[in-house]
């Protein structure tokens, strides 16, 4: 595959790994957080940890969309799905995420709810066109990557007068989450951050400037291919060696400093920032998520259906919150691999392939640990 295989080249990987091994300071430890689940997946999928010197520790960040969604929001979606006449459309991973008392969208479907898996929000629009007598609710999740397509769908629904389409908006923002991680006690022990790939194509690299400025730590934006990750690790090692801390870009083939302005304008037209939003693992963060603007209120499922907000307690013993903050590793959780497996996930991190626990479990990093 052109433009992919080049970034998975074994020879280049060995060369990069050797360069990193030469350039690290053996007397110190490097605690680097890969922010995104896409990085976590690539690291596990290609066995990158084994290629790095032992004093480089990669710590998983919170960048897994289904993992950071609090159980209460999932319960609201389940409640919406169970309403008569509603078709709830969502991305596949979301359907298996365990909610309160082991409930999930898949379990709701088995009880009669009409829950459809879609690959893109366009498919949800198509459902609304095909079923004019039904209410189609798109369960929108994700960081800035998936937000512009949701904005386009809402605009299109408005243009078409598609009155039976609405969005249950759970889009969240990356920089506030990064700030929350760095402000937490365990965040202060990080040496640097492998910055988001797809998110940065939309927002650019400039929103991370606060990381070196306020926290004195470097950020290196990296793609999701294995060579991208190794390249970013090498550049972070170089910055730390030279005593620098800047926002760097190791993903120049798609990420620009100021991002994609057209996508940003679309987001701004359709969404506005919420006062606060709850994140799984990070708690309630100010100005960290989006809601649909007043002018598109007709397409806002929260306004149209007013689902009841529910407070839900996490499964006792589930370490997802600490794992999402980088405070713990999956194998530190006593449920990991026993009570909680990909077949029977108790926490969201075991569901998505971008979740730290699922990546550890499926690709066997737990064996080396």
């Amino acid at each position, binding site marked *: *595959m052109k433009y*992919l295989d080049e970034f*998975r*080249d*074994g020879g280049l*990987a*060995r060369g990069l790994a050797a360069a990193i091994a030469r350039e690290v300071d053996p007397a110190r430890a490097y605690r680097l957080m890969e922010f995104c689940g896409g990085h976590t997946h690539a690291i*596990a*999928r*290609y*066995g*990158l*940890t*084994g*290629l790095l010197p032992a004093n480089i520790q990669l710590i998983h960040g919170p960048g897994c969309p289904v993992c950071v969604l609090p159980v209460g929001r999932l319960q609201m979606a389940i409640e919406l799905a169970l309403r008569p006449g509603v078709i709830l459309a969502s991305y596949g991973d979301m359907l*298996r995420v365990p909610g309160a008392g082991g409930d999930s969208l898949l379990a709701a479907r088995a009880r009669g709810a009409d829950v459809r898996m*879609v*690959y893109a929000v366009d*498919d949800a629009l198509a459902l609304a066109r095909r079923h004019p007598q039904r209410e189609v609710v798109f369960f929108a999740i994700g960081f800035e990557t998936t937000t512009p397509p949701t904005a386009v769908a809402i605009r299109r629904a408005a243009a078409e007068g598609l009155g039976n389409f609405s969005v249950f908006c759970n889009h969240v923002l990356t920089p506030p989450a990064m700030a929350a991680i760095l402000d937490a006690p365990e965040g202060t022990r990080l040496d640097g951050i492998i910055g988001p790939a797809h998110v940065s194509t939309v927002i650019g690299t400039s929103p991370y400037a606060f990381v070196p400025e306020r926290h004195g730590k470097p950020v290196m934006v990296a793609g999701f291919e*294995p060579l991208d990750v190794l390249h970013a690790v090498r550049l972070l090692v170089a910055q730390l060696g030279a005593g620098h801390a800047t926002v760097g870009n190791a993903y120049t083939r798609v990420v620009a400093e100021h991002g994609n302005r057209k996508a940003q304008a679309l987001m701004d037209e359709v969404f506005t920032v919420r006062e606060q939003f709850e994140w799984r693992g990070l708690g309630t963060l100010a100005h960290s998520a989006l809601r649909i603007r007043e002018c598109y209120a007709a397409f806002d499922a929260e306004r149209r259906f007013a689902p009841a907000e529910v407070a839900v307690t996490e499964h006792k013993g589930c370490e997802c919150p600490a794992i999402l903050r980088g405070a713990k590793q999956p194998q530190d959780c006593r449920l990991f691999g026993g009570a909680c*497996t*990909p*077949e029977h996930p108790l926490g969201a991190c075991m569901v998505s*392939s971008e979740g730290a626990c*699922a990546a550890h*479990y*499926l*690709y*066997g*990093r737990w*064996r080396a640990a």
Partner: protein
Amino acid sequence: MTRSPRDFPRRLDLARGRIELQHGGGGRAMTQLVEELFVAAFANPALCALNDQAVLPPPAGRLVLATDAHVVSPLFFPGGDIGSLAVNGTVNDVAMAGAQPLWLAAAFVLEEGLPLAELARIVESMARAAHAAGVAIVTGDTKVVEAGKGDGVFITTTGVGVARDGVDTGGDRARPGDAVLVSGPLGEHGIAVMACREGLAFDVPVRSDTAALHGLVAALLDAVPAAAIRVLRDPTRGGLGATLNEIARASAVGMQLREAAIPVREPVRAACEFLGLDPLYVACEGRLLAVCAPEHAGALLAALRAHPLGQGAALIGHCVSDPQHCVELETVLGGRRVVDWLAGEQLPRIC
């Protein structure tokens, strides 16, 4: 059988007719469907006796029996359809015992409203696949469910075959040191079905690999001593990943694979990349996986490649001793990872 023209005054309307509840009701309509469609297509002496069972001579050797239900959606896909799949799927389950398949039984669950033209296409495809495989469909059953209670047609086939003497290909026979081979590129059936399924607007030039593999199995058994072939499996649902884990567990061995050696064609890789699937877990319907004694691996690979259904064969790894029975992969980057069982359902309704 003698037939009076008055039995069925009007022939089945294969152009415009549809399945009705009476086609499963045990009356004249059902008999007409069976005779004019199924018996006409599958014609063989045992079936033409029109009894509720087939009476067959006992073959010499050990009998192999396998059954498989087919619920694929859509019914027709590039490279095949539910009919050819229902024949090849069961033929392959029999063949993986190192056996020659002889007979099939077929049970159809038809949904009210199914166009007879579609059913006729499926039945003709089954007849072609059975003929190509040299097996006879000797008995069967037809049921009809109300509209909305099925999905067009479900087909269950049961196959009987005879295993070659001295051949034992059970999943518990792999030993440390044994070689692991596959007969061709992975994932083509799963991606072909996925690509043409409603809601996934991918137009990938991939055809299902559905094929009957007993000829290939016979060629392998001719090429090396029977005892050298330890395990034969067809990696259907769950793909190579699930099949290797089953063998590793049953044989209490580990496996070490090389990712770079595992054959996957370019469009399948691209489709998997798009869909977020791992080709190691995508179903094949015309590939086999062989575990064999290391000293015969070269001869077995040559025999695979010499057969039309094994031209893309590759040696992908070895069994090792491992108390945890892990299937491990050396990635294209030189890193290592485990190839675990597939969790959940990657692609529903593909066979």
